[in-house]
C-alpha cells in the first residue's frame, strides 16, 4: 500500500488535496465503525465536499472496477462500513448541509452527512421535529439512518426511518443520478425509495434525503413501572397494547441494567425491582392525560408493584436519562460487551427472556437486557472480557443461539442495527438459499459489477452451504437438501 499507487493518484486528480487520505496513520481512524471487533484498513479514504465529487469518484471506481464502501459517522453496530482492503472508503460526513426546511410542506431537504439530531434542532423554530431518534442521534447521519433503516425509542408510534423519508437522490455504482419520491407523499413507479432503506450501502450512494417533519407534540408524559419479575413486566407490555394504547415509547430494563444505570447516574430507579418499564405517551394534551391514566391503570392491573408518573419535564428527562445511558452504564461494569439486536413477536417476550437467562447460565456469561419492548426489539448485552482467551468465541456462540431462538419464535436476526459483516451467518438461519439468490438478483439490478460494499449484508450461497446451517422457520428446518453437502 503506497500513497503513489495509481488509485490514489487518480483520486487526487478528482478531489481537493485534503479530501484524499492514504497514509497509514491517516487511515487508522477509519479501520472500523461502532463494532470495533472487526477492523480492516482501507486502501484509501476519500472525504468529498460535494455530490459532484462523489459522482466523479464513483465513475472512476466503476471504470476501474474498484470497490467502494460508504460511511457516514461510523456509528453503525454491525460492521456495515468496515473498509475493503483493495477499495475506497467513501466518507459522506462533509456533505453536511441542511439544504432547506420547508415549514409549509413540513419537510427538510438534507445532504446525507447531516446529523440526525441537527434536523430536529433546525426544525424546532417552526414547531416541527424529525421523529426517528436512534440512540446515537447526537452523532449518526441521516444517510446512515437510511442505509440501516434506523429505529429508536419512538418507532412504535412514529415508525422507522423508511416511514419518515419522502424522497432520495442517489448515485448508482456507475455514478448515474436517480431521484425517487419527492416532497409529496409518494412517487411514480415501483417503491425503490423503500428498497434503499436498510440496503446498507449495497444499492446506491445517497446524495440527498428529504424527510417528513411532524408538529412537536403539545404534551409528553412518561411513567415508570416496577415489577417483581421479568415475566410480569413482559406480560404488561402486551396488556398495554391490548388496551388500545400505542405509546410513543415503551422500554424495558432488567435488574442488571437497573443496577448498572443507578451506579452510573443515580437517577433513582427502584433497586429492588426485577424489571422496570418506561412508558411514554405524547401528542394532543387532552389525549395525553387520558392515555396516561389508562396506562397507569393497565400497568397496575398487570402486577406492577409501583408506578411513578414524572411530575414535570425535569423528572421526565431524569427517567429517560437512565435508559439512554444504559449501554455506557453496562460498559462501566464489564471490560467488554456485545450488543445484539433480535426482534420477536411481543407475545413471546417472557418466553424468550427466560430462554436468554438459561443460555446465559449455560455459557457462564452475564447478559443485561435493555430494549424496545413495545416493538419486540431486544438488545441483550453479553458481558465479557476480550483479554480472556476463548471468551469472545463463547460470546459469539451464545449470540448465535440467542438469534436462532428469535428466528424460531417467528422473529428476525436484526431489528435496526443491520446485518453488516456481523450477522452474515444469521442470514443463513433466516433465509433459504433461493431467497438469498433473490437478494443477489436485486443487488445486480442496481450494481451489476458488485462494487458497492461487497461482501456485506447478504451472505454468498457458498458461505451458508459451507456453514452447514439449515435455516429454521416455524420450528421446521428449511431446505433439507443441505444435509447432502
Amino acid at each position, binding site marked *: 500500500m503506497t500513497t503513489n499507487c495509481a488509485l490514489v493518484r487518480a483520486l487526487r486528480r478528482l478531489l481537493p488535496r485534503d479530501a484524499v487520505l492514504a497514509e497509514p496513520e491517516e487511515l487508522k481512524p477509519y479501520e472500523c465503525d461502532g463494532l470495533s471487533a472487526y477492523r480492516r484498513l482501507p486502501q484509501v479514504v476519500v472525504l468529498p465536499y460535494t455530490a459532484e465529487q462523489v459522482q466523479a469518484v464513483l465513475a472512476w471506481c466503476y471504470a476501474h472496477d474498484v470497490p467502494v464502501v460508504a460511511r457516514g459517522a461510523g456509528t453503525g453496530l454491525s460492521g456495515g462500513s468496515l473498509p475493503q482492503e483493495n477499495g475506497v472508503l467513501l466518507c459522506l460526513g462533509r456533505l453536511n448541509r441542511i439544504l432547506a426546511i420547508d415549514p*409549509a410542506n*413540513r*419537510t427538510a431537504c438534507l445532504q446525507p452527512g447531516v446529523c440526525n439530531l441537527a434536523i430536529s434542532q433546525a426544525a424546532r423554530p417552526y*414547531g416541527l421535529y424529525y421523529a426517528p431518534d436512534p440512540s446515537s442521534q447526537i452523532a449518526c447521519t441521516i444517510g446512515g439512518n437510511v442505509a*440501516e*433503516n434506523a429505529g429508536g425509542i419512538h418507532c412504535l408510534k412514529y*415508525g422507522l426511518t*423508511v*416511514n419518515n423519508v419522502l424522497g432520495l437522490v442517489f448515485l448508482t455504482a456507475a455514478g*448515474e*443520478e436517480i*431521484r*425517487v419520491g419527492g*416532497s*409529496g*407523499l*409518494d412517487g*411514480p*413507479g*415501483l*417503491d*425503490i425509495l*423503500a*428498497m434503499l432503506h436498510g*440496503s446498507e450501502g449495497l*444499492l446506491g450512494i445517497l446524495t440527498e434525503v428529504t424527510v417528513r417533519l411532524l408538529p*412537536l*407534540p403539545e404534551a409528553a408524559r412518561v411513567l415508570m413501572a416496577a415489577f417483581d419479575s421479568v415475566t410480569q413486566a413482559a406480560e404488561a407490555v402486551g396488556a398495554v*397494547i*391490548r388496551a*388500545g394504547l*400505542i405509546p410513543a415509547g415503551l422500554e424495558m430494563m432488567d435488574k442488571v441494567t437497573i443496577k448498572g444505570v443507578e451506579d452510573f447516574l443515580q437517577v433513582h430507579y427502584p433497586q429492588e425491582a426485577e424489571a422496570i418499564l418506561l412508558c411514554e405517551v405524547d*401528542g*394532543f394534551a*387532552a*389525549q395525553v*392525560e*387520558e392515555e396516561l391514566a389508562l396506562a397507569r391503570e393497565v400497568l397496575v392491573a398487570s402486577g406492577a408493584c409501583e408506578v411513578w408518573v414524572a411530575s414535570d419535564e425535569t423528572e421526565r428527562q431524569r427517567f429517560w436519562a437512565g435508559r439512554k445511558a444504559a449501554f455506557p452504564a453496562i460498559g462501566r461494569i464489564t471490560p467488554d460487551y456485545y450488543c445484539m439486536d433480535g*426482534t*420477536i*413477536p*411481543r*407475545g413471546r417476550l417472557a418466553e424468550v427472556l427466560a430462554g436468554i437467562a438459561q443460555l446465559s447460565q449455560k455459557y457462564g456469561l452475564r447478559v443485561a437486557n435493555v430494549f*424496545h419492548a413495545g*416493538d419486540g426489539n431486544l438488545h441483550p448485552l453479553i458481558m465479557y472480557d476480550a483479554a480472556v482467551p476463548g471468551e469472545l468465541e463463547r460470546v459469539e456462540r451464545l449470540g448465535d443461539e440467542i438469534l436462532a431462538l428469535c428466528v424460531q419464535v*417467528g*422473529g428476525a436476526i436484526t431489528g435496526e*442495527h443491520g*446485518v453488516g459483516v456481523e*450477522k452474515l451467518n444469521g*442470514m443463513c438461519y433466516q*433465509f433459504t438459499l*433461493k*431467497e*438469498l439468490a433473490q437478494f443477489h*438478483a*436485486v443487488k*445486480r*439490478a442496481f450494481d451489476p459489477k458488485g462494487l458497492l460494499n461487497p461482501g456485506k449484508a*447478504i451472505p454468498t450461497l457458498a458461505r451458508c452451504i459451507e456453514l452447514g446451517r439449515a435455516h429454521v422457520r416455524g420450528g421446521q428446518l428449511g431446505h433439507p437438501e443441505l444435509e447432502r453437502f
Partner: protein
Amino acid sequence: MDRTDELVEKVNAAIADRKPLRLIGGGSKDFYGCLLQGEPLYLSGHRGIIDYAPEELVVTVRAGTPLAELEQALASQGQMLPFEPPHFGPATVGGAVASGLSGPRRPFVGAVRDFVLGTKLLTGRGEVLSFGGRVMKNVAGFDVSRLMAGSLGTLGVILEVSLKVLPKPEREWTLCQEVEADKALELMSAWMGQSLPLSALAYEEPYMYLRLSGTERAVADAARRIGGERLAEGEDFWQELREQRRPFFTEGEGDLWRLAVPPAAPWPDIAGRFLLDWGGAQRWVHTLEAPTRLFQLAAELNGHATLFRTKGARYEVFQPLPENLAKLHKALKEAFDPYRIFNPGRMYPEW
C-alpha cells in the same frame, strides 16, 4: 384455502410456454393502470386469515382473502387497517397491496407500504419465497415486501402478506366548515402543522372536512379549538370519498386524474374540477386536458400525475420516468420476473 401448489403449477406452465399471465384478485381495480394482457390467473381461491394476534397488532392473510372479510375480522377485535384501502368493488387483500392505494387517513398514519411487514411471493422463476416477517422491525435483507406495495403485480404473485394493524380510535368526529377555495390550502397547512388529533383533511368546494380521532375529551377539545359544524353522518362522507362515490367522482365529463404533490403546492393552472384530499397532498382533478399537459404540470409542482379513470385509451397512465430510473425499473422486473410473465405493460408499456 391454500392454493399455493396449484398456483405454482400454473405459473410454471406459463413460464415454460412463455405465456404472460394477468393476475386477478377481485377484479375491482381492472380500470387502474395501463394494459391488461395475458391469460387470467385467478387468485381469489387462495384465501383465508392464517394468523391474527390482536395483541401483536399483526395479521397474516392469504392474498385472495376478500378485503371486507379481513376488515370485519379486525373490527371484531376493535382494530383496523389504518391506511383505509379503497375497495372499488369485491377487492382482495392482495389487490389492495399490489395497487398501493390508500384512503383519507394516509397522511396521518401512513400508506399501504408503511404497514406491509412481510410477504410470501411466487416469483417469475416459479419459486415461493418469503421476505420480511411478522415483527414490527426487521432489517435482515433487502425490503422486498414493501417493494410489492404498488407494484401492480408486475414482479410476482403475492401469496401471503403480513400487515401491521392498529386499534380503532375510541371516538371519531367529522367537522365541516365553509371555506373559500383560495384559502383552503393555507388553512390545511396551518392545521397540519399543529399537534392536533387529525385523521383526515379534505376540501370539496365550498366545504372543508376534518376528521378528529382520539379519546372523547381529546376530540371534543380539538373540535372546540378548530370550530365548524359537526356532521352527524361524518363517517359516510369519508367512506364516499375513499370509495369515490361522491358526486364529484361519479358525475361530469372528462378524465379523473390523481395529482400527488407537496401538500402546500399551489393550485395547478388547469381547467377542471378539483377535490383536495390528504391535507392537499392528493388532488383529484376532472379534466379534458391531455396527459402530456398533466404530467408536465405535476412535474413543475415537484409531484406526479396518474390517469386514474378514463373512458379513453390507457397508454399514458403513469408519470413518465427519467431514463436512469426507467432503466432501473426494467432491471428490477428482470430480477423478479425474467420471462416477463406477470402483468406485462400494466405499469409502463415497455415492460
